[in-house]
């Protein structure tokens, strides 16, 4: 039932006679009662509408039935005017081109629900997002110009922004139906609305606007179609009346209606963190590709990601870690903290036991790496990881070769060296991509253990950023002092292990394991990245994209 008043009558009549649908009439009457939009349209069960009782608290109120709106002037009972235009019965709305008609039907809601079910997502709450063709705003503007006078007669201060946006009306109309089809009610009321933009092909509705007015905003006619469409909404809202003179008001009868282009489901990212050890001296942290050729079969990142991706049924991932090690260096100790963003996961909820199981799967699938403390974390954790808040002191073990034969006693003096300051020129091996500088780094302590006359193990505790390989072989004398100088003979490094995680800070907040409270939602479509703060959205949100594309508009070409 519509809470429309006598005063609305001229507007309603004008809209109906122009070919507006019932929901568009509500919009232009600035009706904010969401439940009214939910009532089924003409193709739905009319039971609810028919049996609705009249509200008695407002006697002068003129009531309309939603479905009657579409059927034309006979709905405006009591007016009995002869000038009622021919009913545009059963044709599509000239303003929304069917968006508020068949796309708000139970049939369509069922289709959407099917699409979600087919993807087999696990989720708790969902968010509906709709992309509409940009040219709809031209029709909207045209309609506004058409009824502006009548709207202002009713309320003096009416402006175009008072009209309920098409997207809002669409969501109010259809989300309840989709929820019912999905068998649960998980819509968040009010604020959880997300928009997306698509770039439909330039249609005649837009073209009409261009030549007459577009130059006024000093962009020039040569600007791209894409730019034009993105700014269409703005252009229309600032468009002076004369800019619209080539466009009919009210908008003409469409020959075709919007079509649904795609229904996309997208689950917000889930973040998984842990620590990893690398036991191989021929494994890079991330895929190592030179000139398009893979230099190594796998990588730490891939070995961890694959079992995770299959458990989360995600589409891609982003890996980040606190620092990295060279290809030929093992990472021992508790392990290096890492985080993994699982993109568009179809499953998001895992118990501690299940996470343990995934961890085991990773650990048994390769002996080159191992992970521990695998857990679901917040998005913020991912950020901390990138800041690379690394440990200030690092522990290494190097296998050192000596040119001359040594005895145990020859290397024991190394244990007594404390807080040795090195002057390290940027190593030759990284000089091609880093600035040339001399950096002072401190070796806090060393511990040498004899292996055989030409080899010993050297354990080092150093300041972060010390280049160990260069300290051992000297890098053409560019690290001073170096081990060659200390031992007065050539030395070289054969193996290097780094120990990570034994003296560092904890990256994962305690008392919050496995709890996701992401307050950000990220939507990426067509290369556009919309990031924004949304009030208290759960990470578990699934976002639907509806893309409506207006296929043809013959009448103006």
């Amino acid at each position, binding site marked *: 039932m519509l809470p429309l008043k006598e005063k609305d009558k001229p507007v309603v009549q004008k809209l109906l006679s122009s070919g507006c649908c019932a929901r568009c009439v509500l919009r232009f009457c600035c009706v904010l009662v969401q439940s009214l939009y939910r009532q089924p349209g003409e193709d739905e069960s009319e039971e609810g509408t028919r049996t609705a009782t009249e509200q008695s608290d407002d006697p002068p109120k003129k009531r309309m039935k939603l479905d009657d709106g579409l059927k034309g002037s006979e709905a405006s009972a009591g007016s009995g005017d002869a000038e009622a235009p021919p009913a545009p019965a059963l044709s599509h709305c000239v303003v929304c081109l069917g968006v508020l008609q068949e796309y708000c039907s139970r049939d369509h809601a069922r289709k959407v629900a099917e699409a979600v079910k087919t993807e087999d997502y696990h989720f708790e709450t969902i968010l509906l997002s709709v992309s509409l063709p940009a040219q709809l705003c031209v029709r909207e503007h045209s309609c506004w110009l058409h009824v502006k006078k009548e709207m202002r007669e009713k309320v003096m201060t009416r402006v175009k922004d008072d009209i309920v946006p098409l997207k809002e009306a669409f969501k109010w109309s259809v989300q309840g139906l989709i929820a019912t089809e999905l068998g649960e009610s998980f819509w968040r009321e009010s604020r959880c609305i997300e928009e997306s933009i698509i770039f439909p092909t330039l249609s005649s509705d837009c073209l009409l606007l261009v030549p007459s007015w577009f130059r006024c905003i000093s962009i020039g006619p040569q600007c791209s179609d894409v730019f034009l469409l993105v700014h269409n909404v703005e252009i229309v809202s600032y468009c002076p009346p004369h800019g619209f003179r080539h466009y009919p008001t009210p908008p003409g009868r469409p020959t075709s209606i919007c079509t649904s282009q795609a229904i996309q489901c997208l689950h917000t990212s889930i973040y998984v963190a842990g620590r990893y050890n690398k036991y191989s*001296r*021929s494994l890079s942290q991330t895929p190592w590709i030179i000139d398009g050729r893979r230099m190594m079969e796998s990588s730490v990142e891939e070995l961890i990601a694959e079992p995770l991706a299959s458990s989360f049924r995600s589409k891609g991932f982003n890996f980040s870690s606190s620092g990295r090690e060279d290809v030929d260096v093992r990472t021992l100790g508790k392990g290096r903290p890492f985080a993994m963003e699982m993109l568009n996961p179809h499953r998001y909820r895992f118990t501690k036991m299940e996470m343990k199981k995934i961890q085991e799967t990773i650990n048994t699938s390769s002996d080159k790496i191992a992970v521990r403390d695998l857990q679901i974390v917040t998005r913020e954790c991912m950020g901390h990881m990138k800041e690379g808040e690394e440990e200030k002191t690092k522990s290494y073990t190097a296998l050192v*070769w000596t040119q001359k034969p040594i005895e145990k006693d020859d290397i024991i003096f190394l244990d007594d060296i404390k807080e040795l300051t090195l002057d390290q*020129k940027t190593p*030759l*091996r990284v000089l*091609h991509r880093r600035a040339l500088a001399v950096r002072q780094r401190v070796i806090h302590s060393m511990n040498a253990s004899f292996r055989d006359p030409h080899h010993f193990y050297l354990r080092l505790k150093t300041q972060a950023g010390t280049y160990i390989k260069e300290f051992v072989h000297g890098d053409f004398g560019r690290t001073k002092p170096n081990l060659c100088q200390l031992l007065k003979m050539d030395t070289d490094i054969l193996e290097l292990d780094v120990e990570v995680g034994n003296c560092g800070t904890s990256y994962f907040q305690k008392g919050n394991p496995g709890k996701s409270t992401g307050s950000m939602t990220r939507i990426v479509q067509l290369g556009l990245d919309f990031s924004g703060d949304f009030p208290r959205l759960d990470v578990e949100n699934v976002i639907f994209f509806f893309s409506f594309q207006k296929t043809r508009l013959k009448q103006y070409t």
Partner: protein
Amino acid sequence: MDCKEEIDLSAPGPSVIERYFTRWYKADVKGQACEDHCILQHSNRLCVLTLAETHPILQDGRTIKNINYKISNGCSRLNNKVAGKSKRGGQFLTEFAPVCRITCTDETEYTIYSCMRGRLLEVNEDILINTSLLLKKPSTDGYIAVILPKFEESKLVGENLLSREDFEAVVSKRAADVQAQPS
């Protein structure tokens, strides 16, 4: 847990130079007999200019009196400064650009040339203080300069130079010629 990538420690493995560098040579630079230079090219394209083991300075127990990176009144390699990742401001060297002059105690003077095109990144100031470094470790701590070829030319560095194999052939031919000459 270890994935068994044990290395053989019974014999010395490849040296730092052998692991990361390609050795290129230029024999009889500027037509001066035996004044051989060596360019060590790192796999990251960076080059280190050194004397070849066969250079006259390194023969017959000679000693160095002086090493001078000032190659003319207007130009000293010691003034070379590079800034940032892109190494702005480094002097650009062509193939026959002199890098330094070395005078031995017997007053013979040798000029060391770039032997390649590229940006000079650094010279070795240590050999100015400790000239014996050049004699004792000519291919490592006694290097002459570090030069960065242009990215697009980095794969061509070896084209105007001799490979180690070719250079060894030149050296043995040289030895054979000396023996063949009646003394």
